[in-house]
């Protein structure tokens, strides 16, 4: 009975892990194969003669490091902007007496439900008129807005848990209200701020539609769009594409591996509290 229970637990862990990891493992294996091995029939599972040549080509066939740098700049700066703006908003919504609080909250949530494609068409025109196409702000600004609702909600839920007395004490000591926000509330809710930042970063890193629309110069492509440039019009060099994919998912894997508990907490806190 005891043994049976243990094996069920093991089986459950294996199913969940295989479901999550299999695609990544499969492209890792593919990236080590040669084109000749690829067309063998029946297909091989493990590479017969593992090679790193595809990685070498991945770095030279397309400016993948440039793509990665673009993604880093866009995701990093939009995250900073988003966290700053949402921290101020979350503070106003949780700590200050203000009229129409619920209305403001609902408006914020409504924005989160806007279809991006409807925004894409006019935003493209706005950015074109401002001469911002193929510049970082064309993505930084929309990405900051994209994550604004979720970041505000996550931080608001953390701000709520900080005792108002601490803030009052800081203000007695001569801190202004805004000073108390930056010296007391934000440092004390660092985990919340951090969680919000990770969510905003991953959202920006993964976004495709706007990145495809706003940046049509190869040197300005972000990683998610740049990856699609490895395919020919009719040919899909899978070992090469796989190598590029592996390079591209390394940063995101590091983030979720290091901050896994934070990320899970942040993802679910917004959801459960609704």
């Amino acid at each position, binding site marked *: 009975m005891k043994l049976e229970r243990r094996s*069920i637990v093991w089986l*459950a*862990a294996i199913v*969940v*892990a*295989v*479901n*999550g*990891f299999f*695609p990544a493992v*499969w492209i890792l294996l593919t990236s080590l194969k040669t084109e000749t091995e690829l*067309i063998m029939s*029946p*297909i091989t599972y493990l590479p017969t003669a593992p090679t790193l040549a595809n990685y070498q080509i991945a770095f030279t066939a397309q400016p993948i490091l440039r793509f990665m740098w673009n993604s880093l700049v866009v995701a990093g700066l939009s995250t900073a902007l988003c966290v700053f*703006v*949402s921290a*101020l908003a979350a503070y*106003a919504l949780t700590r*200050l*007496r*203000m009229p129409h609080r619920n209305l*403001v909250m609902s408006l914020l949530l*409504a*924005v989160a439900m*806007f*279809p991006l*494609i*409807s*925004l894409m*068409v*006019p935003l493209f025109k*706005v950015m074109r008129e401002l001469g911002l196409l193929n510049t970082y702000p064309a993505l930084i600004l929309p990405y900051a807005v994209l994550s*604004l609702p979720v970041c505000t909600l996550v931080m608001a839920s953390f701000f709520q848990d900080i005792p108002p007395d601490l803030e009052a004490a800081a203000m007695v000591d001569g801190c202004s209200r805004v000073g108390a926000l930056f010296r007391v509330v934000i440092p004390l809710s660092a985990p919340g701020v951090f969680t919000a930042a990770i969510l905003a970063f*991953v959202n920006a*890193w*993964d*976004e*495709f*539609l706007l990145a495809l*629309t706003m940046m049509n110069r190869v040197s300005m492509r972000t*990683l*998610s769009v740049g*990856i*699609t440039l490895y395919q020919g019009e009719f040919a*899909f060099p*899978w070992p090469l594409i*796989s190598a590029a*994919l592996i390079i*591209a998912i390394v940063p*995101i*894997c590091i*983030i*979720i*591996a290091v901050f*896994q508990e934070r990320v*899970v907490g942040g993802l*679910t806190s917004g*959801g*459960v509290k*609704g």
Partner: protein
Amino acid sequence: MSDAPISTGKDLSERALAAVLLAPAALLLLVIVVYPIATLFFSSLHTVDNANPAAGEQWAGLANYTRAFDDDRFWHSLGQTVLYIVVTVPGALIVGLGLALLANQPFRVKWPVRLGLLLPWALPLVFAGLIFRWFFEYQTGIVNDVVVRLGGEPLQWLSSPTLATAAVCIAIVWKSSSFMALMLLAGLQSIPRSLYEAAEVDGATAWQQFVEITLPMLRPAIFVALIFRTITAIQTFDIPYAMTGGGPGEATETLAMYIQKTTLDFLDFGYGSALAALMFVLSMVVTSGYLRYTRRGPSRPT
């Protein structure tokens, strides 16, 4: 503390401070969301002659909308979008619930399961689309390899409209179910153990416990997860874009893909704006329907 005048003065300054702190967010929303959406409706009533772009936007009335009404490709892409919603929302819920129940076991080492749920969530949608395209390749894909090993004939996954649609649905369900699972898992973990212990004392089977305790207690979490999934399903773009490019022909094309093509490839901003406006209205209808239900739904005692 007790004197009222000071507290109203404080109220006023608090209101002013709240306004100042909300201003940056409001400004961003105004520039990036409100103004573009307003111009969207304006553009949808105009047309630009691509042969003579200097003439600028010409008033077109409702011509762009009536054109959509007669456009088979619009109706097909709309139908395809609805199909993806109808298949992948329940599909992701069922798979996600399964994953959540599996992940809710008492593991001693937690990271393989946690990362197993996080990786599909963190993987960009386009990457998932590309990887699944590779899975479904006719000659070299692993799906057909499994089909053949099981004694079947290899299938033309990506060149048959029906199979391509199925393949896209499978990819979407895989990609979105783990986020569902994470949300449902949080719901599962908030169910008090004592409920199950009491049920066990009363001799309830595992299935009875699932139906009588787990599902009802999970209702709010399921509801939130469904809203999220539906809203994203309406906008389906990345996965079919990477997997099939909308093909074969336009068989797997979604409304979002058609809008993107109309505007950026055909440079038909008037028509593209009209389609985008229709999509905007459509998703607002769905969202407000959900919100109306939320206001009654979960707060209603069960």
